[in-house]
């Protein structure tokens, strides 16, 4: 406290001199010469010694509160020809011009979510486990029992890895309100694995034998967890930087909208590359429309859930899942006598665009709806506020 001002010394120069200079370990401010008693403007010296305090103050009461902590009492205020500290503070507030405060560098705010970089590695976990499981399946192809065990273990491992990846980093949900969407997410992934084959087999009157699984799509989706989390981080960091720089909400929304779209495009590109690679490696045809739109849908759903809009993702995921389930059910229901007409829309769609069009349409339209919602929600400033649970 020593360094701060010498309001009370002003009247008594002797006392000020009695203060041994050399023995002050905490002095940081240059001393101001004490005012002579009877000077024309006693407040001026005080103003000078407390200039920074007065410049920062937002109202006279703040100056009063801070002057008091520097030992200035009403008694001392009388020396400045004021009745009390409050009126002295008012004079100081009126006489010292406010200064434009230099903004804090936003460095730490930007780095906050990335302070702990473990998440970036954990993001690779689901993909790695999926690849390992695939390799295991290929190695044990001739022993069906062992293969079943490997498949079960692989599914469990991928789920646990996904959980671990989503528990930290930018897609962590601090409030844990995403409960309802998990079931729909699982159903959509299961459909991506089994659905297309089952649908085409069913349309041809089957299934009489095991139909082919779309392992390439699912492994690409598992691998895409990493770019999804990295993209979410990029979005968070860039958005926060823009938040710090923007003067108004409209300006902020205007700058975040292209950011959101470009981040999604980036993710879509990464997912496309992964799909192509997986298809080539596993030598399988790849359903780009279904898997691509599903990936975007899942990322948007998670982004929205994490950033304070947990209801819309559940609705969108639910709608897409329902459409897919209905498509399958309708095909089987068409076999009932007199009901063959219900399969007409599904048959038409499959005939025109192939079986991958059903998940493509379902997930694509759901993703589009979510995207429109997201351009309203995620461009709001409150979506980028520090979540209330975290310090």
């Amino acid at each position, binding site marked *: 406290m020593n360094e701060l001002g*010498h309001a009370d010394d002003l009247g008594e120069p002797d*006392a000020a001199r009695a203060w041994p200079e050399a*023995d002050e370990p905490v002095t940081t401010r240059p001393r101001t010469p004490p005012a002579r008693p009877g000077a024309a403007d006693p407040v001026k010296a005080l103003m000078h010694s407390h200039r920074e305090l007065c410049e920062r103050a*937002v109202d006279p009461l703040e100056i009063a509160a801070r002057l008091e902590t520097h*030992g200035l009492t009403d*008694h001392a205020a009388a020396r400045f020809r004021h009745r009390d500290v409050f009126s002295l503070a008012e004079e100081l507030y009126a006489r010292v011009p406010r200064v434009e405060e230099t903004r804090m560098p936003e460095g730490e705010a930007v780095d906050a979510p990335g302070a702990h970089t473990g998440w970036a590695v954990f993001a690779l976990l689901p993909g790695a486990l999926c690849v390992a499981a695939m390799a295991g399946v290929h190695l044990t192809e001739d022993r069906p029992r062992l293969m079943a065990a490997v498949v079960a273990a692989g599914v469990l491992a991928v789920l646990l890895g996904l959980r671990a990846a989503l528990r930290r980093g930018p897609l962590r949900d601090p409030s844990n309100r995403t409960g309802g969407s998990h079931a729909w997410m699982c159903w959509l992934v299961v459909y991506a694995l089994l659905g297309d084959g089952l649908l085409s087999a069913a349309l041809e009157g089957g299934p009489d034998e095991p139909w082919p699984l779309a392992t390439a799509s699912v492994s690409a989706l598992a691998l895409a967890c990493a770019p999804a989390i990295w993209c979410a981080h990029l979005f968070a960091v860039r958005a926060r930087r823009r938040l*710090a720089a923007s003067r108004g909400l409209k300006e*902020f929304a205007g700058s975040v909208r292209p950011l959101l779209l470009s981040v999604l495009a980036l993710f879509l590109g990464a997912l496309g590359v992964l799909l192509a690679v997986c298809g080539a490696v596993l030598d399988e045809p790849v359903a780009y429309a279904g898997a691509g739109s599903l990936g975007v849908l899942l990322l948007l759903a998670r982004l929205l859930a994490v950033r304070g809009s947990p209801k819309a993702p559940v609705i969108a995921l639910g709608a897409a899942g329902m459409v897919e389930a209905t498509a399958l059910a309708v095909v089987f229901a068409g076999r009932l006598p007199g009901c063959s007409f219900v399969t007409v829309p599904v048959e038409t769609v499959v005939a025109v665009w192939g079986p991958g069009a059903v998940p493509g349409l379902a997930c694509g339209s759901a993703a589009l709806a979510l995207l429109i919602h997201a351009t309203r929600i995620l461009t709001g400033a409150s979506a980028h*506020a520090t979540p209330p649970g975290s310090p």
Partner: protein
Amino acid sequence: MRIGLLTEGGYPYVSGDARLWCDRLVRGLGQYEFDVYALSRSERQENEGWIPMPPQVNRVRTAPLWTAEDDGIVHGRRTRRRFAEAYGELAAAICAPTPPGAMGAMGAADPRGPQRADDWEAVDVSEASEVSGALEMSGVPEVSEVLEASDTPDTPDTSEASEASGTSAFLEALAASDGVMGSETARHPRAAAARHSETTGHPDVVAFPEASAGTFDSEADRFAAPLYALADIARDEGGLVGALRSEAVVRTLERACRAPGALRAAREARVPDLLTVAAHLECVLRPLSLDWYEDDRLGSVDLCHAAAGGTAALPGLLARHFSGVPLLVTEYGVPLRAHYLTAAGSVPVRALLASFHGRLAAEVYRQAACVTPGNAHARRWQERCGADRAKIRTVHPGMEASRFTAVGEARESADPYTLVWVGRIEPAKDLITLLHAFAEVRRSEPRARLRIVGAPADGPDGAVCLAQCEALAARLFREEEVTEGATAVGDSPVSFEEVGGREVPGLADAYAAGSVVVLSSVVEGFPVSLVEAMFCGRATVSTDVGAVVEVIGGTGLVVPPREPRALAEACVALLRDPGRRARLGAAARARALELFTVEQNIAAFRDIYLGIVSRFPVRRLVVDEAGEPLPFGVPAEVHVPWRWTRQSRSALRVGPRWAVGVPVRATVSADAWTTLSPEAAASGREATPVATATATSSPEATAAPAPTPVSAAAPAPLPTSASTSTPAWTGKAGR
């Protein structure tokens, strides 16, 4: 009488502020019932648990202020619009610059004195009518409608009507407000009653029409009206947590900041600033979403006592708004001042939050029936923030005097050359100045010693400060020690000790060790160590900060802060004059025993409670099924301002009841009523065993001299018959 004790980060928690004072208060006022409503400040505090509760604490309700779970309540469109309007007005009020002089206007506006009696009566009646807020609300009018209604020129009629008393006044007021509301409401009496209660939901709008002419009141209403509107929404439609976090709030804030005429600092607010302010407001307004204001909770107490201002008093404000419960605010430190000192962030954030807290404090002071600062320093701040001087009564904190009795009454046996400093070692105590001063003392009094007794304050500051002081002491006194050799070998003239060590087993011993106690702080609220020194009968030298002058009152020497020479001169003067030391010490002890004991603190609060309850009784209106007010629905004995059916155990144990400081005459007559009609007591207070009431009151009746036969001669108590004829009585009035 039931007191609702409101705390924030305080009383029942082990680590709470001012818990000692609250505990003493609750234990000392065993004749009243206490309901504790506590807001906790952190998770740690909540996990640390409560201190043990005395039996007079009926219930403890707590709510966290550090977290709020999103309750998932999504409001309908109409509610959202109401919310946005109210929040927008609140934001506009916060962003508006404080009109010059408005803050201090109330302090200066003493000429209102002669009006006061009328004001109080008006408040009573409006509170009575407000109680029909307990009705199921039908057709809740919009906030703006309420404001319009109160602005119409008809309002003075309402206040004239309130000159009368009781139910007729209520009906007249109702009629008057019907004139305001239009003929449509007259056809539906119940809706009219509900509406009326909504109107008087802002009692001062109606009750203080003359006073609202000043800028202060309109300014205060500008803040208060939307605050209460938000509270109404929270009560009618459920919690505001989700709404207060929504994007709409940020947008509303931005609009308010950019509005013409907003604060200059607010106009510069950027988006992160808006977010910070919105988050802070959400945190501060969390008490609005609590379920504390129902009729069986804070609605049922006779008096809300907020143990601090600011957020702690917010539930009290709302209880007053909903149920007309009078509010007493005790502030040992001024929260607004603390806010200024701790506020961080950019200029717009600090400006907006300071504006909010300033207005909240002004509203708390305006609505409080009584404000009790702990010292004159807090009092000055309160006056500055708009507290009416007539409402303020300083109540000094009480301290346990008994442990200093032995030291205080013994003849001085200490080393006559020892100075003692006792306290928590932190920068604000300015030990540096003390050490420099002591160096000067040594120059003129080489035998002088200084003992610094105390532990470093929590946190890094304390340890750093202690290290600095020790280094400085070593530097200042090392050569001296070597050259002089007057002191014992290895015995520095300055010693740093802690209470509980070998040399200083207890706090009283610390004071006993010195002949003069020194206080060198630059910042001080209520100087505890100074009062302890006074209890010990020690002569003191202290700096003129905080409440020091007020506490010491001429029984010790006071010097300006940060002046080592002045401090040294005062110390030397006392060291050289044992007679003066003895005289000052005796006077200090006498003064402390008169002013700063626990007993005076509790007695002062008992008087204040009684005063408030008699001046602002909560009139809970009882209505029948049709919504008509029932005359005599609440019998008179409900208003007896203490527990009259169950004797406090302590009173019985201590001695005859007339020797305890409770007014005897009125108690006896009340008890005589009970003796005569136990069934009345049983029907009125369902929790009271009749046998207890009769048994405990009978010795009283024999002990009491005069009024018993008179009471006994009056059979068939009127309230009893009235109460038995009203079915709603037990439910509504049973407290």
